[in-house]
């Protein structure tokens, strides 16, 4: 594979980090980076935080430089088809890229809204364009923002919008924002932050209609209550970018399924040694979870990309990918850090809760074993949890790497 042609589809965090890792590991052959967006890779986490509040600029979120990598960069041209038998990637302009090795890193996008939408005033948050549009809408006079969906992105945008002095209503389908992902203790802490900041929170509620023809005028919640608004953000979760893989014979189930060695699975569940995947598009087995998981976090994209690059270059001695997941979020100046898989816990233990000092520490267990931890304002503690999780994972034998 060292002197051959490798194509990376998806020019964002996972794609770029895969390119860097391939070069660092000695791949001297052709390396092509294909991206649907018409710009070099940039970093997304600031988009819903410092970019909205004006503390970070588009220039400062660039992930490059790429010049030293010797890449053929094809930005603004999405891949539309994958031919795994002929080993070809087809782009929207009709060009065809032949490969010996393929890295799939097309990430995810906002889960789309099923019904009709007004022409303007309704936003999503995934790309720099999305963030620019929302930032513009939130510039100037005090207005009302309705956030549909209280996942991390919805919560972060609510925080940024409050910081800019706007009125915010946050609609959460869960009993508390983020209770599914983090449990009741952490969700309670977080809800209080939003509450204290003056955000109106509707829980166990769903936006069922969005009104307005040219501009958004309001929404209906649970087919019953109308709320007037001037701007709406639909933050309904992520949908993996797998459309272009339809008909490729790869296994698609709410993402691209891989084995424990980052290799894409075919329809029969067999791994393909010439196709690896990394980042938000993937779903993969993990010893601490009951079934395949998708993480959708920054450090997952980085670490999985490195592992995938290694495994593509060394198909005979692949490394298993079994990360200690690690995630952060910043809301109202409070830094949340999570490690492991809190979502898959059957029991959460509250170790510290101090609203005054804005500190929180929760440990998560599954069948009596530590599977994760979440803290606010307690960075030092996370390290200890992380080490314990790493030890626990090291004690579980990986599945054999047979193909």
């Amino acid at each position, binding site marked *: 594979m060292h002197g051959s042609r490798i194509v990376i589809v998806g020019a964002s965090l996972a794609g770029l980090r895969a390119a860097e890792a391939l070069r660092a590991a000695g791949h001297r052959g052709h390396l092509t980076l294909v991206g649907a967006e018409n710009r070099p890779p940039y970093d997304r986490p600031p988009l819903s935080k410092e970019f909205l509040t004006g503390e970070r600029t588009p220039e400062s979120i660039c992930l490059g430089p790429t010049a030293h990598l010797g890449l053929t960069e094809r930005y603004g041209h999405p891949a539309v088809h994958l031919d795994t038998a002929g080993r070809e990637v087809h782009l929207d302009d009709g060009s065809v890229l032949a490969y010996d090795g393929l890295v799939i890193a097309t990430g995810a996008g906002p889960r789309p809204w099923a019904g009709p939408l007004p022409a303007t005033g309704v936003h999503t948050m995934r790309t720099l364009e999305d963030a620019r549009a929302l930032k513009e809408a939130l510039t100037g006079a005090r207005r009302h923002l309705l956030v549909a969906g209280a996942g991390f992105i919805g919560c972060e945008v609510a925080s940024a919008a409050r910081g800019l002095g706007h009125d915010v209503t946050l609609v959460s389908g869960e009993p508390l924002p983020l209770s599914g992902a983090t449990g009741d203790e952490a969700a309670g802490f977080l809800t209080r932050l939003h509450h204290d900041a003056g955000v109106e929170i509707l829980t166990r509620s769903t936006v069922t209609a969005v009104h307005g023809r040219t501009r958004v005028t309001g929404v209906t919640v649970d087919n019953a209550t109308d709320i007037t608004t001037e701007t709406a953000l639909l933050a309904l979760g992520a949908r993996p970018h797998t459309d272009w893989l339809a008909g490729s014979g790869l296994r698609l189930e709410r993402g691209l399924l891989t084995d424990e060695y980052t290799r894409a699975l075919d329809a029969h569940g067999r791994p393909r040694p010439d196709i690896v995947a990394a980042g938000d598009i993937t779903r993969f087995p993990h010893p601490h979870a009951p079934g395949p998981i998708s993480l959708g976090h*920054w450090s997952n994209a980085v670490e999985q990309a490195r592992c995938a690059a290694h495994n593509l270059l060394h198909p005979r001695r692949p490394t298993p990918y079994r990360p200690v997941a690690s995630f952060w979020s910043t809301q109202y100046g409070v830094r949340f850090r999570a490690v492991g898989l809190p979502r898959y816990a059957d029991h959460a233990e509250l170790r510290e809760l101090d609203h005054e000092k804005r500190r929180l520490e929760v440990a998560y267990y599954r069948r009596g074993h530590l599977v994760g931890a979440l803290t606010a304002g307690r960075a030092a503690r996370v*390290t200890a949890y992380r080490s314990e999780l790493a030890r626990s994972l090291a004690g579980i034998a990986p599945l054999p790497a047979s193909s």
Partner: protein
Amino acid sequence: MKITVDMSLCESHGQCVFAAPEVFSFDEDDHLVHDAEPDDALRAKVVDAVAVCPVRAIGIEG
């Protein structure tokens, strides 16, 4: 080996602490502290730390 951390960039994400705990740690106020001249034997871990820092705050000199 000499390393620098641009503290104006560092957001205490702690990814470097995970990658190279011998070199990076947090004090009680969540501020990052680091060994500015770690042993060369730790180079691979420090290179990892540089790669996983979300804000690219860490630099290696020599």
